[in-house]
């Protein structure tokens, strides 16, 4: 390569193998202890010790044979154990640098660096440095993401860190509103029960007889106890979801640094995700019904060519709507508002679509001679009316000359704000019913996020005018001549 190496190849931090070794040591000690308890000092224990020695050697050799180097145009990861593998990541393709540190790493002041790069196709490629010192991690991040090298510098590229948002204690209380965190207790409980069951099974505690009795025992309990248990679950679930949220998002901080946006979070494992600022082409504000009533919203970045976008694109967890909008506006330069409402025909369509599925089931139930199911479905379809109306109220689109915004959904609402230059193409969809109502759905095709942001049920002519306003040169040649 023509470019001169800056610091030359480096090894990972020498303490790296300690972390790996300690982790394996714990697992092996656990296994050995169990072995000792069950069968005394048997061959199994010796095998365990040999395994430990082997794994230590493995870690040492791995550390010794792995080097990395940062050149002007690329990062080189070189592994030469038996075979030899060299991985080159062109610096211009790097989209993000992700620094994380588990408890062990943090005690030793180490960090794992993950370099995320857009590959030629749609799948990303990445390199992992496990692990380097914290200072080295910071240095790598600055080198790999400094925008001075890759193009025109962003206005605040040299400015010191600017804190865009920082978690306030109130934020932790929003955790139960977000569905995913509410489900964590059940996932945890499931895996704990599974482990206990397996353990019990191994020790011969689970017998067919006992299993049969579990059912009787549960059913035989007094009703009061059942109600108490239900209340307890209702109380405990949000509490655990808050704990889970705090574990992942402790001291959530979003700051701008060197032309990058850095998210730092986590209690035990501290994670820091950097996104190259000029690759951020938009943002998404998402909320569900509970979050909407509480006035909070989650914010995600739309970044082109980012792998694992669901996790790395996160800019803010559920946080007050005003704060989230401020952050989005600072990142993108503004949020187009107010949103233009969609035509009244869209309201009809939303309501009909909300009512149709339960009504269809009701008809089938009636035909099958199940009147009670039919009545229940009819009741549901009446309840669907306000849902349809709300879905209509949430529809909207806007553009302010540099950014466009579309919003849809009611139970899970999503507002996308996208820079005009990020638009890849336009897709106009029209069903037979939409055609009769003069409506169409305009999908803004994007090379980020889910691949598109739909503006549902716009008036057909408005949809085309909207696309024409944003990219006149793409639409004008195909307009109907007056």
């Amino acid at each position: 390569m023509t470019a001169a190496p800056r610091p030359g190849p480096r090894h990972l931090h020498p303490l790296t193998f300690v972390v790996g070794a300690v982790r394996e040591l714990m697992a092996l000690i656990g296994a050995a202890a169990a072995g000792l308890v069950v069968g005394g000092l048997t061959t199994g224990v010796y095998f365990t010790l040999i395994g430990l020695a082997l794994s230590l050697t493995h870690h040492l050799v791995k550390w010794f044979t792995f080097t990395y180097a940062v050149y002007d145009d690329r990062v080189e990861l070189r592994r030469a154990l038996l075979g030899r593998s060299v991985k080159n990541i062109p610096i211009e393709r790097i989209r993000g640098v992700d620094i994380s540190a588990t408890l062990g790493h943090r005690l030793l002041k180490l960090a794992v660096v993950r370099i995320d790069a857009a590959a030629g196709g749609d799948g990303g490629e990445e390199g992992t440095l496990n692990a380097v010192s914290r200072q080295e991690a910071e240095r790598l991040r600055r080198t790999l993401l400094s925008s001075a090298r890759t193009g025109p510098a962003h206005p605040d590229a040299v400015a010191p860190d600017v804190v865009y948002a920082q978690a306030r204690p109130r934020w932790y209380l929003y955790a139960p509103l977000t569905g995913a965190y509410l489900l964590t207790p059940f996932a945890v409980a499931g895996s704990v029960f599974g482990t206990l069951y397996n353990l019990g099974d191994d020790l011969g505690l689970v017998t067919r007889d006992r299993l049969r009795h579990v059912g009787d025992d549960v059913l035989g309990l007094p009703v009061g106890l059942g109600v108490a248990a239900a209340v307890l679950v209702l109380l405990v679930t949000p509490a655990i979801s808050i704990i889970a949220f705090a574990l992942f998002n402790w001291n959530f901080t979003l700051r701008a640094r060197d032309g990058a946006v850095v998210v730092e979070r986590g209690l035990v494992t501290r994670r820091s995700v950097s996104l190259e600022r000029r690759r951020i082409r938009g943002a998404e504000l998402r909320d569900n019904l509970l979050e909407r009533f509480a006035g909070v919203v989650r914010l995600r970045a739309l970044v082109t060519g980012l792998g694992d976008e669901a996790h790395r694109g996160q800019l803010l967890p559920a946080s007050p709507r005003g704060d989230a909008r401020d952050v989005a506006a600072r990142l993108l330069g503004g949020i187009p508002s107010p949103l233009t409402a969609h035509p009244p025909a869209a309201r009809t369509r939303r309501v009909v679509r909300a009512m149709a599925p339960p009504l269809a089931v009701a008809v089938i139930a009636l035909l099958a001679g199940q009147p009670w199911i039919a009545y229940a479905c009819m009741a549901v379809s009446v309840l669907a009316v306000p849902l349809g109306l709300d879905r209509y109220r949430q529809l909207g689109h806007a553009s302010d000359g540099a950014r466009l915004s579309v919003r849809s959904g009611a139970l899970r609402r999503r507002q996308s704000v996208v820079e005009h230059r990020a638009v890849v193409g336009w897709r106009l969809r029209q069903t037979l019913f939409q055609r009769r109502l003069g409506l169409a759905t305009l999908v803004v095709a994007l090379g980020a996020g889910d691949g598109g942001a739909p503006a549902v049920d716009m008036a057909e002519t408005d949809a085309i005018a909207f696309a024409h306003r944003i990219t006149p040169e793409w639409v004008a040649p195909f307009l109907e001549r007056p």
Partner: protein
Amino acid sequence: MRLRPPDNRVSPRAMAQWGLEYLLGWAIATGLAAGAAAWIDASHWSGLPHALVTRVWWVPPLVAALGLVTVVVAPVWRYRVHRWEVSSDVVYTRAGWFNRHWLLVPVSRIQTVDTDQGWVERILGLATIKISTASHEGSSKVAGLTVQVAIRLAADLAGRAHDLRDDAT
């Protein structure tokens, strides 16, 4: 403001292709429905209401009738809807039948252009062009082109996409 239809129709042979594909698909569906009906009839399964079990033999003819209508109507309908055009370095396509979609993709945002030929298409001398961008919503397919047109169009688009490519995505 309204969009005019794209200039070029696909090859009329595409109707034969779609007809054949729908015929095969619906024949399989009818076969499966008949199999399921026979199984439910023979097993006297109590999981379904009696009224449904006695009428289970209505299903296969219903599927067949639906298929017949689709096979007759859909290819002609699709042929009338499917159109494409490339001008001012924008690919403009219209597709669908029952539901329609229009797609506008500038050549500068195209990442790859593929030409595909299934076995039915090979028999009929047709090909499908797949135009991919960074977004799957912005990726389009033009089916039912003759092989010569498809190859020429693909080469043309790929060449111009290379010249115009901007990394705005």
